[in-house]
């Protein structure tokens, strides 16, 4: 168990961390290549969609043939994508590398893949904690890599910084050996087909509620992550306030993800999820209604940080609890796809409604309403294992 947890945690630290600071390349790349910001933003939008869309497929391959192969291919794609991102001289090549290749790489190296192995190797009573520890490692990666990547760009140049990250992505390969496991066919117990597993999950209301909640998670985080600095600028706050807010979100995110995994061992996970979404709605409401100062931003950033990726361990632990671990990575991939659709809408709608109304107020209140909705729909989620008909004797 320790080997799986340590290797899985470092893999997630790398895979989540490397891509987190990509916004830092916007200025140097667009200036050097003479591209518009739209070219850069479009590639990152494709990256997020590719990550979500490829997630179920990568998860299915990992569940059937072992996470090791998927991690190996994911690591190579990650390194290739970063190198090609540095060398791309056209918008199309940049979209193919920074967008498509890295998006596919993320689907093969992040939570869903690692969680499948963790779920199969950790006792059910410790699973939530283990998922929390791995998620906290991913949060730490995001927190760590922003200053590291800023330093790399400043000291080695933006291209060399990408080459260095490409080498770092290859470190996932030796770590993947720690997650080697026998393919599905070699495992004991009754085997379910992929199609049957997908049909079963989508026919089960609790799975759909979890997907709805995760959609809201993606919407809120992407909207705040992308539009918050712009909102603060509009309201006349100094740029260093946004930087401090970024640091606070990163720091409290580590504690939040670990804490919800730990709490999931004793509390009902649906209650944890409902509380997270409700607290997010309350935090946003207070942020909007109270006078906006640097300190109100810091308190909001700390609160949202603690609630940032804290939905990841309980959501995935419930999926494992209901459907078992045979298709954990694939089903986690489907839930994550819903998260990414929410992310896409959060970013796009934030910009669209801002252009239409001249302010972010409407999107903030949509985020509040969605938070309340997600809190409500998570309450009836059934956490017990789904009952399946016993196999008929031949």
């Amino acid at each position, binding site marked *: 168990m320790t080997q799986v947890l340590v290797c899985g945690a470092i893999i997630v630290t790398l895979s989540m961390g490397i891509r987190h600071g990509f*916004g*830092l390349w*916007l*200025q140097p790349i667009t200036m050097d290549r003479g591209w518009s*910001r739209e070219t850069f933003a479009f590639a990152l939008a494709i990256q997020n969609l590719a990550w979500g869309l490829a997630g179920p497929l990568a998860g299915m391959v990992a569940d059937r043939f072992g996470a090791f192969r998927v991690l190996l291919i994911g690591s190579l794609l990650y390194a290739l994508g970063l190198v090609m991102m540095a060398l791309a001289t056209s918008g199309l090549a940049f979209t193919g590398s920074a967008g498509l290749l890295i998006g596919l790489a993320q689907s093969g190296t992040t939570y869903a893949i690692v969680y499948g192995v963790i779920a199969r190797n950790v006792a059910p009573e410790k699973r939530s904690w283990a998922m929390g520890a791995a998620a906290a490692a991913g949060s*730490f990666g995001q*927190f*760590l890599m*922003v*200053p590291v990547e*800023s*330093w790399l760009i*400043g000291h080695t140049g933006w291209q060399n910084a990408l080459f260095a990250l490409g080498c770092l992505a290859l470190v996932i390969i030796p770590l993947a050996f720690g997650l080697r496991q026998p393919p599905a066919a070699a495992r004991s117990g009754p085997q379910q087909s992929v199609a049957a597993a997908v049909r079963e999950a989508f026919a089960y209301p609790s799975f759909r509620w979890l997907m709805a909640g995760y959609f809201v998670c993606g919407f809120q985080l992407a909207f705040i992550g992308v539009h918050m*600095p*712009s909102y603060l*600028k509009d309201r006349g706050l100094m*740029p*260093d306030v*946004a*930087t*401090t807010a*970024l*640091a606070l979100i*990163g*720091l409290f995110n*580590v504690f939040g993800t670990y804490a919800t995994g730990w709490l999931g061992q004793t509390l009902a996970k649906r209650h944890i999820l409902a509380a997270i979404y409700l607290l997010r709605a309350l935090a946003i409401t207070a942020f909007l209604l109270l006078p906006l100062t640097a300190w109100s931003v810091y308190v909001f950033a700390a609160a949202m940080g603690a609630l940032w990726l804290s939905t990841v361990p309980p959501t995935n632990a419930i999926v494992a609890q209901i459907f078992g671990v045979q298709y954990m990575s694939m089903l986690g991939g489907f839930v994550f796809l819903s998260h990414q659709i929410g992310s896409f809408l959060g970013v796009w709608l934030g910009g669209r409604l801002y252009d239409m109304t001249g302010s972010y107020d409407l999107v903030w209140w949509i985020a509040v309403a969605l938070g309340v909705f997600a809190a409500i729909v998570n309450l009836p989620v059934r956490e017990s294992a789904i009952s399946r008909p016993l196999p008929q004797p031949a």
Partner: protein
Amino acid sequence: MMSPRRALAWTAVLAVLALVFAAYFSPHLVVDLASRVWACF
């Protein structure tokens, strides 16, 4: 009661987190990050 080994591990984790947090406030990084974050919008 927390074992000494666990207490040491938690201390190390908190120290690393504090170091990374402090890195966000180095004058060069604050200026660099602020200009880049704002430049995105």
